[in-house]
């Protein structure tokens, strides 16, 4: 049983880190539907670097750096060029999916380094992800920078009038968001499952994206959601051992997505919005032009 929980928490780590990245971008008003693409870049590059140099540290740094670079690309398309963020995100996803399949192929196979030490099976990154979520919550809701960042995502013109540089804030948050996604990919490729295979994330980036909506843009709810989705994923790997004869493993895998749709629908009802307001950052996905 311990094994099951540990694996669930380890899986949740990757969701948490990637989704935290997405949260910080979306809180500043920039939607990146290409989480999966950025994670694939992070995973592939970190895997390649770690395998070549034999250094985990360099691997992680490379994963974070490539994430920042892709984040910068998304920021440039979405903020400077003012393009449609969904199209840009799709572009980043398909670029990541396509290019990493090609450049990573020669590295197919196991990493071949000693595994990163665990605490009774629990990855140290899980603890890191919990701390990160709490820190992120503190940053967003208790600090001046966080307040400014949220304001930019809610109403950029009001933020601008209050003396905040909207473009700069958005650039910084999208780059940072890319770094976290790249890191999440690196954790997957170097720690969770250190075997490279083409398109090996199988939609984990999209689960992370779904989690952001599920968590209503709150890092602490996200933490709970990640663990739930991590458990669901783990159940789906071997359902017969835990809940025999309920659903096939594939049906279990649809659960995070079904739950996300249900949460989305609930959030769009009048009942919800009259109680909680639009949890969604108001300016999410909208390009901002100074007038």
């Amino acid at each position, binding site marked *: 049983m311990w094994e099951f929980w540990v694996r669930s928490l380890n899986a949740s780590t990757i969701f948490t880190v990637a989704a935290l990245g997405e949260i910080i971008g979306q809180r500043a008003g920039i939607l990146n539907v290409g989480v999966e693409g950025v994670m694939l870049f992070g995973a592939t590059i970190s895997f390649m670097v770690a395998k070549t140099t034999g250094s985990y540290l360099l691997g992680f740094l490379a994963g974070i750096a490539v994430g920042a670079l892709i984040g910068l690309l998304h920021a440039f398309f979405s903020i400077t060029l003012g393009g449609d963020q969904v199209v840009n995100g799709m572009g980043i996803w398909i670029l990541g999916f396509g290019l990493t399949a090609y450049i990573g192929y020669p590295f197919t196979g196991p990493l071949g380094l000693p595994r990163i030490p665990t605490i009774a099976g629990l990855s140290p990154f899980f603890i890191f992800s919990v701390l990160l979520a709490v820190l992120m919550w503190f940053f967003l809701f208790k600090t001046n920078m966080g307040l400014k960042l949220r304001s930019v995502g809610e109403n950029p013109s*009001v933020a601008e009038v209050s003396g*905040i540089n909207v473009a700069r804030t958005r650039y910084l948050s999208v780059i940072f968001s890319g770094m976290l996604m790249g890191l999440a990919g690196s954790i997957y490729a170097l720690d969770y499952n250190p075997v490279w295979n083409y398109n090996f994330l199988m939609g984990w980036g999209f689960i992370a994206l779904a989690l952001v909506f599920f968590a209503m843009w709150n890092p602490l709810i996200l933490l709970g959601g990640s663990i739930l989705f991590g458990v669901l994923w783990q159940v789906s790997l071997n359902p017969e051992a835990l809940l025999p004869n309920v659903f096939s493993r594939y049906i279990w895998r649809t659960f995070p997505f079904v739950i996300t749709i249900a949460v989305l629908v609930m959030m769009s009802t009048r009942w919800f919005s009259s109680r909680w307001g639009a949890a969604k950052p108001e300016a999410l996905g909208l390009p901002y032009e100074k007038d």
Partner: protein
Amino acid sequence: MTSFYPVKCPHRRQGSVIEWLIPMTAEIKHGDIVLEARGITKRYPGLVANDNIDFEIRAGEIHAILGENGAGKTTLMSILFGLVRADEGEIHVFGKKVNFRSPLDAIDLGIGMVHQSRKLISAHSVLENILLGHPQAGSILNFKKAAEEVGHLCDRYGYKLDLNARVWHLSEGEKQMVEILKALYRGAKILIMDEPTSALAPPETKKLLKTIQIMTRDELAIVPFITHKLPIVLSISQRVTVLRRGKVVARLNTADVTEQRLAVEMVGREVIFELERDVVEKGKPILQVENLSAHDEKGIHSVKDISFSVHEGEIFGIAGVSGNGQQTLAEVLAGLRKAAGGRVLLDGLDVTQTSSLDRWKKGIGYIPSEQRAVGSIGDFSLVENMLMSYYYDDAFSKWGFIDFQKTRRFTEELIAEYGVATPNADVNARNLSGGNLQKLILARVLSRKPRLIIANLPTQGLDVGAMEFVQNKLLEARKSGAGILLISEDLDEVMALSDRVAPMYEGEFMGILPGETADRETVGAWMAGLKQKAVEQ
């Protein structure tokens, strides 16, 4: 006692201009000139928005700036707050000449602005909004200290406000309080207020007036910009500057004037145009509205229990300052918004629950106030725009296929008839000028020969030629027996066109006056709220 609120103006940027401009310890005495504008002129293409405007504002005084829509108030306000630069003239704040590069400079100099469209972030709490952009908020926000300090301000001015509430939960009056608190917490000494009472319910208005009177005791200078609600101007302000067409037409001490005098100064007396109005026999009622109530998109109850009827061959004018429920009323009648109560009858048939398409078909023609956002589709050609009122018409389509050739011929005929200036009918609507676009919309709606025309601000933003054209077309439709509901903010237009006039104020008709006997001053006063609701005549 001239010490200010307990927080001693600590919120200026360190080392900013203000440090040497006004020593913080200097006390402002009652009646000191705190802001002085000299010869402010601002020109826009084809328009002088502000023409050599002078005035001064004193500490501890409420100085109202009064004027109709288009009199230049907004421009003046934007110049004082650093949003727009004047072409000529200078502004002195606390005796020093200033040059605003942005509103931030104005804020640093102690000028606060309370906007009409609330500049608040609705998902944030009150406190977060107040702290946003505050130069001394610190990198980790000290909500406790801020709450204490803002709490002192609240106590001083008698505000009761949950500082942790989300702004979207608040009423309009409370949102305004937040804006005022935000300005004061940043150390504002001069408070510019844009239409401070326009969105407020009467009890909230009362409260606001009380608090700003308390503020003047702290030697704050308050500058409300007001279009209507003359009683308010009289009851609170010490001085009034009246603007008309970009110029200052009067500087008055409120103690010396009456409401009627103010109304005359504001509206002016000259009649701009004369229209030929034939005598048309009033026929049977087309539209009957019974006890209609409705909410606007923000959920505000903006049409309250209205009853009236429009007859064949009649122009029924609704006069009112924008935001008094006319837009909601027009949308409800056109079927674009649900009524909250009451009935709408067209030719005796109840159409309250029917769709807008159904009402088009039954003979209601709606000319919306927003030509580009609602009345037309910019990326559609003129032919396709014409189809907006004809796509469902079997005369223009067969088995679901639209006859574009016929539509084109029809469009070309109408373009010629209405004199729409365009190279051809394939031009996209966004390339037409405002006047030509309105002619096209008019052609589209009127060519259906509607029984009832709802014309919502049909001449707003048009030049004089196009304006006259539109007005004459409405008169023609009247002559041919249509009933017309005209909604206008232009008093001259309503008076010149209408057979009956209903001044609308805060979602209600103040009365219904026959066009021939109504005089401008009465209608102007009623739509400004200077009358208790009258019994229908």
